């Protein structure tokens, strides 16, 4: 009788444990699904921006009246090209994230001068319409050559510059510094933007989340920064961020040479 009772008790415990474990697993899966759906929603949203621009620009260019104003038509053409490039970059980032998730993300290493790439990006980002953008690069007499994936690294720095401009006021001041620290190059991008709240900094690089999800989309953070983190970590590097709300943010990439 005693043995029967003990056996029943043990079996009941096992059942309860099983139910608890199932509940925990299902809850975790449900949360993951919600977070992933959030990511897909954000991804679609980020791609819809350039698609919307392209759609309207091409529609306007196809009208007979488009020829009447050549400066406006030229601007529409520029917008179309930029939108296509934007879409292409975003799709590349999404694919990189997906491949990293699958464990098949590979870097194409080549030797290049990091300072030269940053200077090219400075020219590209200094001419943003509607905002006054001032980018300063601090350079010292060091070896800026690095062995890395040039395209992905370039995209990472472009993402940081893009965010710095997006989340700053009408007068944007960006300070870029590259320094040699042991066997790494440390690239810092500092801005005078709106900053990031301390409790959100930890979530900044989470793959499937975005800041201010209840308030607004804060378009770009969901994919851009998680892509930067993925690429830098693939290079066995590190990304750090410091930020003060109302003052600005500072992102640092440490990349082994």
């Amino acid at each position, binding site marked *: 009788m005693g043995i029967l009772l003990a056996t029943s008790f043990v079996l009941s415990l096992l059942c309860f444990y099983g139910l608890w474990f199932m509940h925990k697993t299902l809850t975790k899966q449900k949360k993951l699904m919600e977070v992933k759906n959030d990511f897909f*929603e954000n991804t*679609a*949203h980020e791609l*819809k*921006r350039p*698609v*919307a*621009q*392209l*759609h*309207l*620009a091409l*529609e*306007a260019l196809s009208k007979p*009246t488009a020829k009447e104003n050549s400066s*406006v038509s030229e*601007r*529409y053409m520029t*917008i179309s090209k*930029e*939108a296509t490039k934007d879409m292409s970059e975003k799709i590349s980032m999404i694919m990189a994230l997906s491949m990293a998730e699958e464990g098949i993300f590979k870097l194409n290493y080549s030797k290049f001068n990091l300072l030269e790439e940053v200077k090219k990006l400075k020219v590209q980002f200094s001419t943003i*319409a*509607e905002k006054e953008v001032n980018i300063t690069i601090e350079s010292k007499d060091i070896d800026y050559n690095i062995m890395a994936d040039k395209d992905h690294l370039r995209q990472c720095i472009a993402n940081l510059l893009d965010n710095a401009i*997006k*989340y700053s006021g009408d007068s944007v001041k960006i300070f870029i510094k590259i320094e040699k620290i042991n066997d790494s190059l440390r690239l810092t991008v500092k801005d005078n933007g*709106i900053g990031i709240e301390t409790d959100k900094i930890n979530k900044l690089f989470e793959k499937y989340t975005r800041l201010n999800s209840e*308030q*607004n*989309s*804060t*378009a770009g953070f969901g994919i851009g920064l998680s892509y930067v983190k993925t690429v830098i970590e693939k290079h066995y590097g590190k990304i750090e961020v410091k930020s003060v709300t109302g003052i600005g943010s500072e992102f640092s990439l440490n990349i082994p040479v």
Partner: protein
Amino acid sequence: MKKILLIEDDINLAFILTEELKVEGFEILHLTKGENALLVIDDFKPNIILLDVNLQSNINGFEIAKKIRLSNNLPIIFTTSRTLSEDLVIGFSIGNVDYLKKPFGMRELTLRIQELLSRNYMRDNQIKQYDIGEYTFIPSEKLLLIHGKKISLQKNECKVLTLLCKSNEHVVPKDELLMNVWNDIDLKQKEASLYNIISSLRNKLSIDTMIVIEAFPKIGWKLTKFTTDSKLV
């Protein structure tokens, strides 16, 4: 010339919209942020607002719309690339709004602008009261008044009776009634509901025997023997 206040932080999109809406004959004022919208509305006096839901600022398009709604009832068209149904609930709860999902074409945008402007014009110029024989019909209150007695009308009864009154003793086609009440003309199952509405209205209007809702088979209905006296309440 109708004026549009465009609140959109995508500079490229805003440029295209501004140029193309100018071609359509609108005057446009573009803001990249919504924080100054209220001040601008007082100065610019737009007829309609085009508002991006996903503004990259500390407050989103819905918050800005709610602030605007506190001081006026300007029609607002939300533009968004989001698909969440919760957004629709929030947006439409603000009232006098419409939604446009990105990407959209100019034709769709201008049609929605015109429709919303037209709807607002009709509302602002609506006749407030009809005299139907010995009845007084107040559409805004969904009420029929006769000899001191109040008769309540259902929402759809009110819509049908308003159309019949506006037609001024002309036949109102069945399709027009279906479109007005259910926003569709291809609803066979709704026809039965429409017949019920007509029957209910006849019942409610039966105190004054001079009032008749005449049926014209396969065409529609006509409200006869009433005097229209348009006046503000």
